[in-house]
């Protein structure tokens, strides 16, 4: 069986996998990091999104062996060591952007990448379009959009019109 060596949330691991093992299976089953979820089998829902080398990736759509040597961050690795939440996690809580919580890890990981890729800041429409890879069945996205709008300002160190309007 092939071996994969990777860093997950700052910790090195070497794991034996099958050639067909998906990254999400490695995370959930081998490393027992069950915060990353599986909501579909057609790469539609985004519940499985993690960061690989700083970019958001659907962990159900990439083989574990492809991530050999990579740096992976999952929802479990977002908060600071002292428990301080990432601004995106904080905003999701503040704006009630989660209900059942199942889409939440993938949604938060996607949102962080989205904000990082748009240092100029996004409008409501751009945030909605940016979430095309993530499904939420509970919230209707209203509060998710508000949370991301607020978090982008914190992450970029400024306050936008949208966040003010959302308050």
């Amino acid at each position, binding site marked *: 069986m092939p071996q994969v060596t990777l860093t997950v949330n700052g910790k090195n691991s070497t794991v034996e996998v099958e050639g067909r093992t998906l990254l999400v299976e490695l995370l959930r089953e081998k490393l027992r990091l069950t*915060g990353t*979820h599986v909501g579909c089998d057609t790469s539609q829902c985004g519940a499985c999104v993690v960061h690989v080398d700083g970019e958001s990736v659907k962990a159900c759509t990439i083989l574990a062996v492809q991530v050999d040597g990579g740096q992976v961050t999952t929802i479990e690795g977002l908060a600071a060591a002292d428990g301080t939440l990432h601004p995106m996690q904080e905003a999701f809580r503040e704006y009630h952007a*989660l209900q059942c919580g199942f889409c939440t890890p993938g949604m938060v990981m996607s949102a962080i990448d989205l904000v990082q890729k748009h240092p100029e800041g996004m409008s409501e429409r751009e945030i909605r379009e940016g979430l095309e890879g993530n499904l939420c069945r509970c919230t209707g996205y209203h509060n998710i959009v508000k949370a991301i709008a607020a978090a982008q300002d914190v992450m970029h160190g400024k306050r936008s019109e949208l966040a003010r309007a959302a308050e």
Partner: protein
Amino acid sequence: MNVVAPFEGIGASVRRKEDLRFLSGRGQYTDDIARPGQAHACILRSPHAHARILKLDAAAARAMPGVVAIYTGEDTKGLGGIPCGWQLHNKDGSPMAEPRHPVIAEGKARHVGDPVAVVVAETRTQAKDAAEAIEVEYEVLPALSTMKEALAPGAAQLHDAAPGNLCYDWHIGDKAATDAAFARAHKVVRFETTNNRLVPNAMEPRAAIGDYDPTTGEHTLWTTSQNPHVIRLLMGAFVLNIPESRLRVVAPDVGGGFGSKIYHYAEEAIVTWAASKLNRPVKWTCDRSEAFISDAHGRDHVTTCELALDETGKFLGLRVDTLANMGAYLSTFAPCVPTYLYATLLSGVYSLPTIYAEVKAVFTSTVAVDAYRGAGRPEATYLLERLVDVAAAETGMDRVEIRRRNFIATDAFPYQTPVALQYDSGDYFSTLDAALETAGWAGFEARRAEAAKEGKLRGIGISTYVEACGIAPSAVVGSLGARAGLYEVGTIRVHPTGSVTVLTGAHSHGQGHETTFAQLVADRLGVPLSQVDVVHGDTAKVPFGMGTYGSRSLAVGGSAMVKAMDKVVDKAKKIAAHLLEASVQDIEFDRGTFRVAGTDRTKALAEVSLAAYVPHNYPIEELEPGLEETAFYDPKNFTYPGGCHICEVEIERDTGKVSVVNFTAVDDVGRVINPMIVEGQVQGGVAQGIGQALMEQAVYDESGQLLSGSMMDYSLPRAEDLPMVSVANHVTLCTHNPLGVKGCGEVGAIGSPPAVMNAVVDALREFGVRHVEMPATPAKIWNIINAGAQRMAAE
């Protein structure tokens, strides 16, 4: 001393207690649980809609690596069938047809997805590989993809026990009086429609783990359920014959339900049974594509209706004839959805003197249909609110005016409808006025003209609705065929140092009970929110419960907690009286403090609870130690949330794409405990309603294959498909529960679809469109626009 900051109690938008674990990846959903030594099950499902199983050869599969066991219907035929929780009666008084629903198909498969065999293997992939190696020889029988086909004379029979594929033929209301009303009508408006079939698609796929301890004989089932005690009751008593004392059902964190996780499913029985046969844990997790063909679907009605009006536009009577699809087997609540949760709502918010409704429920070779968010009330609301718009168009009346003219008067409550329900409270005029104001109804024509300049078609639609939830009085539902009581159970455990644990039979799968229920305790007992913990979802911890569906958690479960808190306060007052050397009659209690009336002599709750558990100075002759009380609350009536939704759409002429540009919901959900959570519930419900109106539909082809069988083919609303949703409340209190609450989980999905469709029809009015069926997909709308344009060009 008042220890509670007021912002933690009733009416405060406190942030949710559960969020930290979900945001940190520390939720514990069923699939996150790994039992030591667990094996994995894979279900081999029928690829045919209707087929005899002639031969099943598992020899090659058994020899595959890792295979532990393979089971077929032969192995499980001694088990009970999956039970139905509701027995309807036909017009003639005879009981509905209730064919056996085997755990694994017995000789015949009745829908694509029907379990045919179960493979248990060391790993999930080994189980899947082996399932593929099972050879099944089928004799394909005619599929019954639609109700029309199933009811056609000479149609193939799905079940021997259901002649003509008919489950029941039921009616409600006064036929003679309704006929008489139509005979004297000035105008009769007729309308036919289909309520599109939906796939619930909670984001967490179903999963189940069975475990068995041979030394104690205890079975444990972890399952993605909205109601673990109900699963214990149904599976233990009817399928596996396990006494409650030996069966523990745990529904841990559950990732959304929307009804689809109420029901007892075969897979739960399979893993529980297999675990005891194999003496090791057995786990099954559903793939999404598998969920499409095994989770119960929703809606799927075909209806014809007629409304009789007098010359002033007053409604005189309503006639409704509905076909309701049950799918291949009766799911837990299926029979009651198109009857007691649908036909009883046909009076809507209107004073309708007489109604007669007939409902036929039909078996088809499709996956079972049961309650999905709203369950029957969205179907009733859609029918009525489209019908009223059609009536307005045909009588030349204004859409708002025709509604106002027929609303139940605000001083007419309690209001007895002609279809069994008695609404306790409501104020439809106020929710209407507030919604018209917020949505800018008066200024709409200017916005329409503006859009027209950009070549867009803009329309506005309104829906005024009432629903019945907070289910339900046990005696009433019992007389209507429910095989269970629908009370709820709450335990308040005050610990020695004054913190509180709440045990509730309701189950949270997104609703935020851990917060809302804690707010009730903070408000009443004055315990800070941080010291109140809510426990749910485990039959070994919570005494009993009926679970969460029908927006009942707060109205029924919350009321049980209030009753339990009343008992706690009663007992604590006696203890306080002893400690304060006063008479019980003189003790007052307010948010955490017991006081001898008119004095400054007080005891805090924590002092009283300490005395209860360390009863050194205690009225031990009269009172038991401890401070914990349980209450069962059986509601006196349904609750009746209502309100008004207004939707504004824009349609692109070139593509037929409908965009919702404004959505306003003004709902009366009774007293609001946490406005932030209520708003979120309404927004989520509206999103599902917009999904139903514009995007979602389960489509079966004539061979019974589900064409929309994955997230690639079934169109779920994404962020860019939805607008911001403006939510407001106008409160009238429920008159019969102690909190005055009505329920908010389903109003969004109930009120919104007709508002959207009324807007779509309004936008298309220049093309002479009378009605558009849901979902209003771009292709459908483009065809309407194109046909209309061609017709107009020809004229």
